[in-house]
């Protein structure tokens, strides 16, 4: 019957309860949409950058990340390659050689560029390189050509079938100059990469630079990218750690995480203020309700209802009301988050430019991570339950004679 009383009490003042319910629902709706957008954007940004650049985790020659030079490349023999590939937590291990060079064509000045020696089938399978191809084909041992990023091709005024000239420095001070046919043009999505990258077959780049059999990175594709830290510890045991470093993307790009965290903190500050305002609203309701009910509490206490039971009854009342608000807010936010999860907002203007600076695609897909719903639903519930302490304290202090006097 306590349950019945609590439930019916909610509907005693319908308008007030509905307003309270609506404000809880609105706050939660807003919080979820906002976090869904923010966290979705970060996920998108991370995976965009990760896929376009380093992968989740990679082995490098010792000290390579501080000074990115062929001199700090390493031999794959220093890794127990097969053992790593067979590890259950590892989907694949991809060899890469990366270097910088000047690029030129018949139609343009020289431009700086970034050379990536890869095994195209692996990069297609795990990083969908083939899907980025606009025309032509991927570089391979048989075509022995280069694939250019579309932005770079534009800058160099170079077309499929034209010749690209590479002027660079190789391993141990050797020169690395070569001429290659352009066999493919790709849209790399990531704006920075798209203005600078040239893909070659791995062996061809090793040959060009004289870094025979050397790699600058062995990229780990994890089966589950969630707990990279544990994976790193596990994988490090397979390795001669004096010759190589194993680095996660977080270690390689801390500034990316910092930028996202700063942005996230701004969002949380807004939510904090929102929760504060809504909290005061709920408190107002509880204050009024408690004052109104005092004579009634006085009667109940007089006839012998224990303070504990009375407290439980009001506690349930507040809990039901806020749960109703939480349920409606969460429920309303779901279709919107879902819509923008599958149809991300495309950014224009300043935001677009800012994100391009970070090398991200200017897209805002919403996140459907259930922890967003859970976190903010719990925050809302906890706020209202804490506020219901006011009525509970009032009940514990109530003097029946005073409460019944009007």
């Amino acid at each position: 019957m306590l349950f019945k009383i609590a439930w019916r009490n909610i509907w005693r003042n319908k308008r007030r309860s509905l307003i309270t319910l609506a404000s809880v629902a609105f706050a939660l709706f807003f919080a979820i949409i906002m976090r869904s957008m923010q966290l979705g954007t970060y996920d998108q940004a991370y995976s965009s950058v990760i896929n376009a650049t380093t992968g989740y985790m990679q082995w490098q020659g010792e000290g390579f990340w501080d000074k990115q030079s062929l001199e700090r490349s390493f031999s794959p023999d220093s890794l127990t390659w097969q053992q790593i590939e067979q590890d259950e937590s590892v989907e694949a291990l991809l060899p890469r050689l990366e270097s910088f060079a000047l690029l030129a064509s018949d139609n343009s000045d020289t431009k700086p560029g970034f050379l990536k020696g890869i095994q195209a089938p692996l990069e297609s399978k795990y990083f969908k390189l083939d899907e980025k191809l606009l025309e032509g084909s991927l570089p391979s041992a048989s075509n022995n050509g280069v694939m250019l990023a579309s932005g770079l091709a534009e800058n160099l005024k170079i077309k499929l079938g034209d010749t690209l000239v590479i002027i660079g420095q190789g391993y141990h001070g050797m020169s690395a100059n070569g001429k290659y046919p352009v066999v493919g043009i790709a849209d790399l999505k990531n704006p920075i990469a798209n203005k600078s990258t040239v893909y070659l077959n791995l062996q061809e780049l090793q040959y060009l630079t004289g870094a025979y059999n050397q790699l600058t990175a062995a990229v780990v594709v994890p089966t589950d990218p969630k707990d990279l830290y544990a994976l790193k510890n596990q994988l490090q045991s397979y390795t001669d750690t004096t010759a190589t470093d194993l680095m996660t993307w977080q270690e390689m790009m801390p500034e990316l995480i910092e930028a996202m965290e700063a942005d996230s903190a701004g969002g949380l500050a807004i939510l904090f203020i929102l929760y504060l305002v809504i909290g005061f609203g709920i408190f107002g309701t509880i204050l009024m309700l408690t004052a109104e009910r005092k004579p009634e509490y006085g009667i109940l206490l007089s006839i012998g209802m224990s303070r504990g039971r009375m407290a439980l009854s009001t506690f349930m009342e507040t809990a039901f009301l806020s749960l109703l608000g939480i349920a409606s807010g969460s429920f309303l936010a779901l279709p919107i988050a879902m819509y923008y999860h599958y149809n991300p907002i495309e950014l224009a203007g300043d935001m677009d430019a800012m994100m391009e600076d970070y090398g991200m695609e200017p897209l805002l897909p919403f996140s459907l991570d259930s922890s967003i719903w859970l976190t903010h639903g719990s925050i809302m519930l906890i706020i209202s339950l804490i506020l219901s302490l006011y009525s509970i304290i009032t009940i514990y202090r109530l003097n029946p004679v005073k409460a019944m006097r009007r």
Partner: protein
Amino acid sequence: MSVIETQNLSRVYQDGDSEIHAVDKIDLSVEAGEFTAIIGPSGSGKTTLLNLIGGLDNPTSGTVTVEGKPIHQLKDNELINFRLQHIGFVFQAYNLIPVLSARENVEFIMLLQGQSKQERESRAKELLQAVGLEQQMHKRPSELSGGQQQRVAVARALASKPSFVLADEPTANLDSKSTEDLLDIMHKLNKEEGITFLFSTHDQRVIDRAERLIYVEDGKIKSDEKQ
């Protein structure tokens, strides 16, 4: 043994610098089966006295004993439970839980006592019948007249099988017909079931029906006579 016994009972309120002796050294005893009215002018201390007897207020000095138990010594939660088990209350107004029906209101107190559903339902029906409200038992208080609400309150007060029923001006908000009806019911319960009633009133019709009249003034008993 008396149902109610007070000795040297006093309640002093502090009002700024002066003291108000709302109840002043009252010795009173009420036997089982009495139908007693406490009367007196406004501010004479009737409500204060009833609150002390009902364990709603703590005496400044003196003792209150109910069925041999000195209730002024009980702790807060013990006192709440004592009220639940031994005392029936009818207040002037707002007696009932607004969100419960008449029958649920009567059942509620038995639920607090931990009685079974069967027992609660049958006794609630019986009591509502006794106060003439079996037709109204599914209505909420707001759908009942003031007199009907007070009758439900009487039924609820009896539901816990108390030692006695305390009623502070139970008819103050009622018209004369409702007052008559309520008095008839209380009187009948007193005569047929032997329920002890102790109530305060200003109402001459109620005074006429009382069997013992205790007249208080300035917190003291001025006269106490059977009629």
